């Protein structure tokens, strides 16, 4: 089947997207949300009872966890309205009031999108959480039904990216990708086109593509959100990558605890197979590829690509020191393209739209958008997607709502557990690869951990180092013993048993770890500690010299 035939088949099975008279009720929630099933059922029952022409769609989460279940109602002739925290009772109200009648229920609405202004409902253009985001990787999350390939095809331009790639030469595809400016979202920010080119140029009988969907940083919810809400955007990206480098086998690595995500992935792959999007002659071309799901126990090191490769080789999932790129010699010594799940969702978006469109977003050298999850002491723990160049303050304060209980921000840690800290005064720094690197930080997983003004920097560093020590795989001396020593020393300081020389030792160990660790995790593990010493020296001095905690009087 080619794409047209697939679309025709999809329309046969799924007629509502094109039906201008059909109301669409899109109920969006995380898979584990306790009320979403009841809300869905209530909508369906009430709609059936009232005999309204409406379709209830079980969408996934959009990342605005606080408001779930959210419901997006697209009523013909009206702007789409997003409702928040819907219960079965309020669902009934909406059916009776808005679907049957004409009361849009302003009390329940978060905002309306486009069209005429509705009384009592803010316009999305006035909502920071809407207008500060630019959702590319997350474009379909919370909108389409993740368990329906038809929705992806009909409502999300699904597989049109792959279809156009199959019409192009591989070098042209790489050229387009280069033009888009896409950089790997795994953390390092290496040019995706460059990586694909290396893998493409390496001659080998077999090649592989690996999608890292591990969420190795447990606070990042990127992979979970993408797979649970929109698996096909990722899978289409994988197929494009496989096609370009010449791989016939792909592995999508998923945290084994993500049961719903795995279930939806299985379903997605089955649907793809039914449409001939897996196996031989994909979209009537000579491209063939198959994708397997690999369930992996998640740990911080499982985000290291070398560790993933080891796991796929049935070895202990530990990083190894590589002398060549996996793109040259990876899984079983064969060229292997390892891409982060977020990157691959961008890939499908780029080829569904255009490289020029994509390259217009973001900053000069960091093109596009970044998924960010807020955590810690912040009002809204959202997962959002913002253009590169957005400031930390915008994300933390404007979107996240700042620190709980109106307290000030002591610091934010950006990029995951090995990211460095930024003080509350320096949040105007922009989120992009260059600025982060210059500041000594990392893009990492893109998570932001927020600390209120009553936090102690020593305790912050101690807690993160104790976590890193526990997560260190233990293979290399600096990763293993460096985190051990640092964790021990920070414990001593936090317990007012530290000495001034301890700080010198922390710095010395930190330098050793940066230079001497096998993997990125070990090399960046000292960063939070080193940055906290630099930024919050007073907290350390208070513990060491005055034997007290400067942040918390009770210490």
């Amino acid at each position, binding site marked *: 089947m080619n794409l047209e035939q697939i679309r025709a088949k999809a329309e046969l099975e799924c007629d509502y997207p094109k039906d201008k008279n059909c109301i669409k009720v899109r109920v969006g929630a995380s898979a584990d949300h306790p009320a979403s099933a009841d809300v869905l059922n209530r909508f369906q029952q009430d709609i059936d009872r009232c005999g309204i022409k409406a379709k209830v769609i079980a969408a996934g989460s959009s990342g605005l966890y606080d408001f779930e279940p959210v419901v997006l109602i697209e009523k013909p002739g009206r702007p789409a309205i997003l409702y928040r925290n819907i219960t079965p009772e309020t669902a009934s109200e909406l059916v009776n009031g808005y679907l049957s009648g004409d009361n849009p229920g302003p009390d329940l609405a978060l905002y309306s999108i486009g069209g005429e202004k509705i009384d009592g409902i803010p316009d999305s253009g006035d909502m920071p959480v809407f207008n500060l985001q630019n959702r590319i990787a997350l474009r379909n999350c919370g909108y389409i039904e993740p368990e329906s390939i038809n929705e992806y095809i009909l409502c999300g331009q699904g597989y049109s990216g792959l279809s156009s790639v199959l019409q192009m030469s591989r070098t042209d595809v790489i050229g387009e990708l280069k033009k888009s400016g896409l950089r790997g979202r795994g953390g390092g920010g290496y040019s995706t086109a460059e990586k694909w080119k290396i893998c493409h140029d390496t001659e080998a009988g077999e090649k592989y593509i690996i999608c890292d969907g591990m969420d190795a940083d447990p606070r990042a919810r990127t992979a979970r959100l993408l797979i649970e809400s929109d698996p096909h955007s990722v899978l289409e990206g994988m197929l494009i990558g496989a096609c370009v480098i010449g791989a016939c086998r792909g592995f999508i690595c998923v945290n084994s605890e993500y049961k719903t995500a795995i279930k939806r992935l299985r379903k997605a792959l089955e649907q793809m197979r039914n449409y001939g999007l897996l196996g031989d002659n994909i979209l009537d071309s000579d491209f063939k590829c198959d994708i397997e799901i690999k369930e992996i126990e998640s740990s911080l090191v499982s985000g290291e690509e070398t560790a993933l490769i080891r796991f796929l080789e049935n070895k*202990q999932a530990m990083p*190894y020191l590589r002398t060549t790129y996996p793109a040259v010699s990876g899984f079983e010594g064969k060229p292997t393209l390892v891409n982060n799940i977020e990157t691959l969702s961008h890939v499908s978006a780029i080829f569904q739209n255009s490289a020029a469109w994509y390259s217009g977003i973001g900053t000069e050298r960091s093109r596009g958008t970044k998924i960010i999850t807020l955590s810690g002491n912040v009002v809204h723990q959202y997962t959002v997607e913002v253009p590169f160049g957005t400031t930390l303050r915008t994300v933390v304060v404007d979107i996240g709502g700042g620190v709980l209980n109106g307290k000030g921000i002591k610091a934010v840690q950006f990029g995951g557990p090995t990211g460095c800290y930024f003080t509350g005064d320096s949040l105007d720094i922009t989120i992009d690869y260059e600025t982060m690197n210059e500041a000594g930080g990392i893009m990492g997983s893109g998570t932001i951990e927020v600390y209120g003004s009553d936090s102690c920097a020593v305790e912050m560093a101690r807690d993160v180092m104790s976590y890193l020590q526990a997560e*260190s795989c233990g293979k290399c001396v600096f990763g293993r013993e*460096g985190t051990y020593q640092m964790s021990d020393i920070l414990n001593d300081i936090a317990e007012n048993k530290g000495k001034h020389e301890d700080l010198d030792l922390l710095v010395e160990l930190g330098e050793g770890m940066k230079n001497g660790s096998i993997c990125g995790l070990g090399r960046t593990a000292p960063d939070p500690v080193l940055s906290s010493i630099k930024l919050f020296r007073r907290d350390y001095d208070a513990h060491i010299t005055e034997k007290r905690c400067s942040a918390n009087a009770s210490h």
Partner: protein
Amino acid sequence: MSVKEMIKLNIDGRDVETQKGKSILEAALDAGIYIPHLCHHPDLPPIGACRLCIVEVEGIEGLPPSCVTPAEDGMIVRTKTEKIDSMRRLAMELMLAGHPADCGTCDKYLNCELQSLKQYLGCEDLSVKRRSKLLPLNTGNPLFVHDPNKCVVCGRCVRVCHELRGVGVLFYIKKGKETLTGTAADLPLADSGCRFCGACAEVCPTGAIQDKKELARGKTRKAALIPCRYTCPAEIDVPRYIRFIKEKDYSAAAAVIREKVPFPGVLGYVCDRICEDVCRRSELNEPVSIRELKRFAAEHDEHRVWEGNSNKKSATGKKVAIIGSGPSGLTAAYYLSNQGHAITVFESLPFAGGMMRFGIPEYRLPRNVLDGEIKDIVNRGVEIKTGIKVDSIDALFEAGFHAVLVAVGTHKGQKLPVPGADNKSVLISVDFLREINLGHEVDIGSKVMVLGGGNVAFDCARAARRLGAGQVHLACLESREDMPASDDEVSQGEEEGIVIHPAKSFTRILSENGVITGVEFLDVASLSFDEDKNPSIEVIENSGHILEADTVIFAIGQRPEIPQGFGLDTGSNNLIEVDSFTFGTSKEGVFAAGDAVSGTSSVIKAIASGRKAAIATDKYLEGNGIIDEKLVAGPELEEVLGLEEGFAFINRCEETCIPPEERVNSFCKVVRDIDEEAATQESRRCLQCDLRTKITSVKFWGNY
């Protein structure tokens, strides 16, 4: 294969040539430039974990570990700079932080790579925080002791287990905050599918994984690691022939045995198999049935590859007379003949074989096996003259012999001088057995009492049973546990109805009208032996009692019969005195071997003695004394063992016998033959302890 491309690089100002593809570390070590290293092992893939081998390379940022950095043409490398030194020391200090400081109490002391590196880098005082890991010592596994406190997580054991052996039961694991290596879920090794190859202990650079001390104490490394081979008096390469049996190449297996002994079949029946007593497999469950496997190989040697591969040297023109055709004499004859000497063996009895024929009854050693192996020796050009009793060695020299080997064995039995011992129905073990084996009629009576507790006593008792004695008793001084006879002799004897009376002292043999009626005994309270092996017996007073018998056989040891005309010095028990190194007797050109030197012993010891005497005699005759032969190549060492669940629990293939009620009716062989499946299964039980010795040993910095 094309010749490997050579490249040149400069290390510390020295131009070094190396093969393309080698790492900087390998290139440096090959050139004799030492770079400290710990996690690197020459047989394992490098991982760059310990950071001791870091170097500076022009054009490469940072301090790359030389073990994983390929050497490239034109590279300029520095291995010793201040920066490198401080990073190395920091890495070393980090490893030492959790390692016990008391090297002196460790069994690895002075043999420890970590200790050596600590000295090299001069890390005595640590700037980092010391800690005690306080992890429990694991002594619960067979063969090895694991002390995780000494582990510096170099990962060699994990790599050797996965990459070299393909077993993959060892992993990096975490216990609390500590990383160590061990099995998944901390399973005992036996439950994990471990093959007990010992590679982990071999490559461990510290004292973390060590062989259990009790298995190595007082032994050379070889004897501790491959005890079967190096406990065997003839040092037969046991693991190698077992490996051939596993590959179903029985002729090759037989050839391996024949590299050390000319009697594989005989030994397959009667060897006292001290190799099995020390087999490391017994630490897991039971030893490998080495003797069964040897017999199987010998009896399935269809292609006789040894024959074609054995090289007989050209004639030296030297003649050697060997007196006695027992295992030591014939072994010496065989090897001396191979060395090119003309050999004549003189045997006083009508047939060759010595104790193998006239001592060991046929039911234990089928005569066709013995005959076949003697024939092989004759076919090699050895002349055996039977029925000729040599009385004078000088006469042999006069007859043109250049050397003489006395291997007359111990064929003179003895009686205890107790009242009644001179009765004609009181027999002597060796004489009794010789008569039977000569095919002579022996009147045995119906109630036989054998006095003695060794293998010969059992041979007499079991032979008597086969001759028709309805009741056979055996009494000995030793307690049941201390009886010198081998366990299978005792158990098979009992199955055949032999009644054993341990801890008895015989005081008199009773008779009426010249006909024996019984033996009077006292119960023994304790028995000990002095330095000269003379017994000291303490009997229980008033314990005298009589057991009925009509025939009595003394089986209380033998001694050699050395004719006066030999003119040789003899010592206690009339044993020939020899120089323990040269095997030379008191007479120039005369050597001695076997039981006549050592006293009654086992066939394998006699063979080993024959080998040593052959070496000595050959050297005396100006040969090189090298009698070992390579009779077959291979087999390829199977370095990859693979995981095998339940490997530790595979049961031993025990020897099985014909039912006793059947076997007492004849002198037919008692043991059953094992089939191929059983042989293969048994050969797979071997731990292949020799594999470990093929692992390259690491050179310490002092050796560069």
